[in-house]
């Protein structure tokens, strides 16, 4: 049993999906989803602690076929760190989903919703676990296709979900196509798709133009999937018009998986010494990352719809992760992993809290939350803490992210970039404060709908809030795990 855990946590939600669709009954479908995401979370925690204790890489041969013939699932320090993020968020979002879905989606679609929900989660977990480049593509498509459907389900309440889902589909497909073209080139050059094998054989042909072209295609495809500026335009409408539960799940996990795959491919396959990687790709990612940080933050300041506002902020936060990657160092990658983890917590908290409001009034705008601080204090406090964490206030997880990100930049003597990072993170104060002032310092307008909060509304968000603060104070395990993950790809001291 124990040795099958790596496959089981992908398989459970994958097989649960058709079952959920067949169940037809919404509570049973929800219960199944809760059970399976919970199981996946438990498994990923076990895998994580196993990996942490032994420090070894767990390789699972699918069907008993060893690599490079068969497909392998690999639990190393990096995938062991990202798995609990995905499955943990999925579990908490599933808890919240019941009430949100009831409020926002037509009752006869609920079973289908949970089917797509489980599929997209299975796809994300698969991308993280698999050690095969084509298998990544398969899971990428599984998670994306079901995500398009999930976004489109927002149409019952908000017709704009349809064009948003369509745009997302087109651009997502373009991204996936780029990825698979790059993969084709690699296969042509090396004749293998296993990541370890690829990395070995690529060493012989690494100065060919085809290899560099493959890198360009793969990186570009993943830039699109991770919504790196300026390839981010699909993200904001998709998050804003999707059902609230979907916004929470995707904002916290979807782009993170692509960040992980990018690191896995670029550093795990091509390697830091690949000709042109450190200069061309590194510089490109740094530039786009910092530009995205500014563009996302400024757009968030101008935004009045809360879901859009925090979706724009996600663009900025993904920019920070890109900066960590672009630093091309162990500390930089560790910073990217730390922020990947922390940002999932913050955005999970924020979107779950916003979802609790949107499910009641349809749209969480500045007008809706005016003076809401006293009416729904727990929900608004969750937004307050999440917002402060986005700025990087001490004792929140965001602070730890910022410390290591800037440290990575300063170690490489990127002083100017460090300064720009500080400025953009300070600008985040403007949009966070706008919300705090509106919610806490203004009176609730007369005739505004009365917002309520019950445990189903705030408990999921608060689980994330507690984690955000917890990992801001006791960051040691995360930092250690992130460095271990970074050392999978780049050697070097702490």
């Amino acid at each position, binding site marked *: 049993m124990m040795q099958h855990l790596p496959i089981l946590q992908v398989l459970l939600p994958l097989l649960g999906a058709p079952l959920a669709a067949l169940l037809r009954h919404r509570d049973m479908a929800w219960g199944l989803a809760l059970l399976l995401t919970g199981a996946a979370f438990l498994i990923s925690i076990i895998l994580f602690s196993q990996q942490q204790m032994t420090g070894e890489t767990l390789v699972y041969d699918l069907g008993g076929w060893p690599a490079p013939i068969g497909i392998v699932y690999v639990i190393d320090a990096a995938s062991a760190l990202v798995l609990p993020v995905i499955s943990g968020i999925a579990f908490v979002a599933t808890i919240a989903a019941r009430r949100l879905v009831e409020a926002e989606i037509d009752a006869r679609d609920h079973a289908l919703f949970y089917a797509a929900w489980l599929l997209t989660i299975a796809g994300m977990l698969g991308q993280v676990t698999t050690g095969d480049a084509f298998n990544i593509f398969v899971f990428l498509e599984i998670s994306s296709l079901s995500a398009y459907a999930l976004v489109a389900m927002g149409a019952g309440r908000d017709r704009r979900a349809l064009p948003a889902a369509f745009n997302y589909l087109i651009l997502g497909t373009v991204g996936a196509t780029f990825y698979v073209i790059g993969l084709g080139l690699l296969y042509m050059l090396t004749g293998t798709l296993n990541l370890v094998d690829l990395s070995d054989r690529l060493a012989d042909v690494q100065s060919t133009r085809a290899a560099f072209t493959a890198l360009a295609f793969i990186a570009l495809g993943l830039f699109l999937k991770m919504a790196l500026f300026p390839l981010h335009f699909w993200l904001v409408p998709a998050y804003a018009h999707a059902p609230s539960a979907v916004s929470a799940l995707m904002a916290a996990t979807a782009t993170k998986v692509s960040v992980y795959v990018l690191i896995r491919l670029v550093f795990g396959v091509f390697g830091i010494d690949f000709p042109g990687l450190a200069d061309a790709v590194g510089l490109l990612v740094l530039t786009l990352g910092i530009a995205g940080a500014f563009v996302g933050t400024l757009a968030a300041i101008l935004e009045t719809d809360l879901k859009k506002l925090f979706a724009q902020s996600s663009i900025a936060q993904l920019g920070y992760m890109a900066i960590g990657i672009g630093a091309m160092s162990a500390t930089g990658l560790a910073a990217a992993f730390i922020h990947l983890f922390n940002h999932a917590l913050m955005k999970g908290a924020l979107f779950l809290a916003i979802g609790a409001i949107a499910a009641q009034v349809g749209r969480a705008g500045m007008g809706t939350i005016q003076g809401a601080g006293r009416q729904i204090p727990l929900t608004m406090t969750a937004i307050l803490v999440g917002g402060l964490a986005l*700025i*990087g*206030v*001490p*004792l929140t997880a965001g602070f*730890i992210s*910022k*410390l290591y990100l*800037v*440290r990575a930049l*300063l*170690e490489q003597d990127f002083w100017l970039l*460090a*300064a720009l990072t*500080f*400025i953009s*993170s*300070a600008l985040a*104060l403007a949009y966070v*404060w706008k919300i705090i*002032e509106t919610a806490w*310092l203004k009176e609730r307008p007369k005739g505004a709908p009365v917002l309520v909060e019950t445990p189903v509304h705030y408990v999921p968000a608060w689980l994330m809030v507690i984690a955000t603060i917890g990992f*801001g*104070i*006791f*960051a*040691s395990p*995360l*930092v*250690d795990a992130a460095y271990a993950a970074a050392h999978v790809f780049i050697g070097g001291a*702490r």
Partner: protein
Amino acid sequence: MAADTLILALLGLPLLASALVLVLRDKPNLRDGQALLIGLITAACAIELYGRPAGDTLFILSLADGLDISFTPEPLGKLFALVAGVLWPVATLYTVGYMRGAGEQNHTRFMFFYAIAIHAAMGIALSGNLLTLFVFYEILTFSTYPLVTHKGTPEAMRAGRIYLGILVASSVILLLFGVIGIWVLTGTLDFAAGGILAGHIDPFYVPLLLALFAFGIGKAALMPLHRWLPAAMVAPTPVSALLHAVAVVKAGVFTVLKVAVYVFGIDFLRETGSSDWLVWLASFSILAASIVAMSKTNLKARLAYSTISQLGYIVLGAALATSLAASGAALHIAAHAAGKITLFFCAGAIYVAHHLTDIKQMNGLGRVMPVTFTAFALGALSIIGVPPLAGAWSKIMLMGGALDNGHLLVLAVLMISSLLNLVYLGEIVLRGFFAKPSHGLKSEAVQEAPLTMVLPLCLTALMSLALFFAIDMFILDFGG
């Protein structure tokens, strides 16, 4: 009691007070009474700790490798803890009188955040490394925001935005940059006698790094980052007292001094000449703020600019980078605290008793409020630097430090500044006692503010006096 217990008490007691404020929110007398009582215990702990020899580091927890929350009772920090600890109960008593006398709302929220701010000030004072200091520095910023915007008017909100904008932006853009810079350069964040920077950095970059701290510590209100301080004047007067004397600006200049002494090292600063530019900027800040103060006729606004000018003294002391100047700066933290809190207490007493805020309306008011105006005169004389009041010593020590370092022009700056202080603070005293009454009060009979306000301001005025004679206890030795 062990020194560790005292540190924990100083940090924990204000938190306990804030928690009890919430618990007792429906019983105003009990709520305020416990805050006063806990304040007195805190003051006793601060005095006790000050008398102890420098203790070991108290480790609390580690965020991650090399990122510890820890506290070290070193002399400078103990002095600041003493200032905050002793003035807190006095300010609490005054706050109770003011909030009731002036009919302000939301007392519970006010008392709650007041106590949190003291907690943060204690954390800054006793911090054992830059990370701890930064964490409590930010807690102080966010906990004082609800106090600044207490009135909830559009004007207060605007002031709050300026307050938060300048303080947070400067700290997360520049101060944190400096902190992480030090971390990367030296591999440690711990404060150490003599500094930790020497040998880790090309001297050419030291002035730049110093600038990150000088401007990053917005609470020190060094020009041109001073705008938040006059803006925050919209808050109730006890907040102004808290901002100016007890916690906020003092935390700012204390941080500047602490970083200069324990991170850069004053010898390292002097030998590399890295702080010369800061000497001139601080001098400019001293004179310019004084000149602006003269043009203000609103009493609190004038006092606010006076504070900016006085903070310049302390930054100057750090920048002169001699042992004597640094001790003078440390002393001035205490001296200015006692003096300026008296002045603000008086301003609040005048407002509560007669609803006057403009200096021009205060002609002859000294005869109506003799106690208040006498205390004001004592506070003003201390700020100007006239013996036998505390401000005289710190000014003399700063002058000595300037001489040591060969900065003769700084001597002139300090003298001119004293004259300017005399003009703009003396004017108020003179109007009060000697000018023809113009305040429009019907009777000439004595009419003071409530006792809960008059008592604190007498106490703090006497502190200025006592400090002058007990000077031996307040001279710190930084070596070098």
